[in-house]
């Protein structure tokens, strides 16, 4: 049997090489958690998440909401004394969980991302009304109503497009994408 890579190695391999220093150089100083504007809403703070990855606690890492609650604001990244791109690590764990389909059912983030990417792959442009179902179906009645009100107000001011936009050279565009990832369906 070949040697299996550890979870921390797998995550490191998902990081683009030009970004910052290796995750295992973390000194657990907590600067990232202290800086993070979303930390209060995360199951595990960014510092703990990095520590958990380094300890190969794969299940605990995947199970927490931390990486899907990361807003990619890079505040932690620019302040980390060990020069770790923490926001980049969050992306890596997101990709890991999308590929392995291991994210929690109740999380909206992954479904929104998938809907967004699908819209763009199909038309070359994003289109808000096609994306809305991916997150609105997760809303309770009150949030759903608030969202409908906000959208209607924007619609009235002409701020939501009526027809989905698309690029002109769509066939070339799709072929370009096919060279990188399989497109699935018949698209």
């Amino acid at each position, binding site marked *: 049997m070949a040697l299996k890579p550890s979870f921390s190695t797998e995550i490191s391999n998902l990081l683009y090489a030009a970004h910052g220093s290796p995750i295992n150089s973390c000194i657990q100083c907590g600067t990232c958690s202290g800086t993070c504007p979303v930390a209060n*809403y995360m199951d595990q703070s960014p510092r703990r998440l990095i520590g958990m990855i380094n300890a190969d606690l794969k299940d605990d890492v995947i199970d927490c909401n931390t990486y899907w609650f990361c*807003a990619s604001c890079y505040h932690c990244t620019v302040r980390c004394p060990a020069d770790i791109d923490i926001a980049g690590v969050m992306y890596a764990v997101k990709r890991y969980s999308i590929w392995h389909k291991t994210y929690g059912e109740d999380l909206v983030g992954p479904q929104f991302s998938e809907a*967004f990417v699908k819209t763009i792959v199909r038309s070359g*442009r*994003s289109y808000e009304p096609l994306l809305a179902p991916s997150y609105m179906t997760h*809303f309770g009645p009150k949030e759903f109503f608030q969202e409908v009100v906000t959208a209607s107000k924007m619609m009235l*001011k*002409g701020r939501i497009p009526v027809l989905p936009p698309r690029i002109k050279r769509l066939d070339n565009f799709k072929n*370009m994408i096919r060279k990188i990832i399989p497109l699935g369906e018949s698209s």
Partner: protein
Amino acid sequence: MKKFAYFPGCSLEKMASSYHKSALETTEVFDIKLQELDDWNCCGATTYFHVDQLLAYTLVARNLALAEKEGLDLVAPCSACYKNAYFTNEYVKEDPDLAEHINFALEEDDLQFNGNIEVHHLIDVFVNDVGVGKLKEQVKNPLKGLKIAPYYGCQIVRPRKNGEDVEDPQYFEDIISAMGAEPANFPERLRCCGGSLIMTSRVAALDMVRILLQSAENNGAHVIATACPLCQVNLECYQATVNEEFGTDFKMPILYFTQLLGLALGISPKKLGIGIELVSATPIFSKLLPKEVK
């Protein structure tokens, strides 16, 4: 005349049409032409990076290649688009392997990208290509008495791009002073608005928006100026929801810096797309009217 390839991004087509209009109007005053890229594609904000990194870079590179073909540097008014374009450009320059993979895919659209262009945010054009001094010379209606909170948000400043000051930038304040207005002290000016968490993690995002509005209000700002369509929508369109959730009573107008600059340059509000706000901007005008302006 100076010419740039202009990448409006998806949100500017409708949701942020006022940013689009005011960007074109204000640059024109300084003899700068923003020539829209033909057949650009959505750069994917952050979501492509959740799925596949190479795909993300390739989709951004297609737009860069379109600009390079025209021989023009790229300007993006959306902070997220700007960040994506800036770093894809840098990585292609420094990583031949990445460039090769991207170009292999771009062939399908008869394109190629060699990293021979520069990428700027729209606000950079005013700061660096026009310059604060020139800006000031063209101001016809100084916005005296108006206190403007400069909202940088995240991605214009972060991650760090060639040596910029990520902890205490001042260029937004300088532009506001050039308009004749007063930059409000705004301690949370670099704090994230939540971005797409407004869709995916609503409770967290609304709280983040609340903190920003509170900080601006506490410091006596009459309006928050933004340089990103996503920030604008979060702060403005979700203000009513914030008020409902937190029992607050914010009525903070949120305008693009180009709209405020346009007013100072003497451009009519209509041409700047003023009037399609969900939070009325009229209180700003009553602040300005008593003076000899207009």
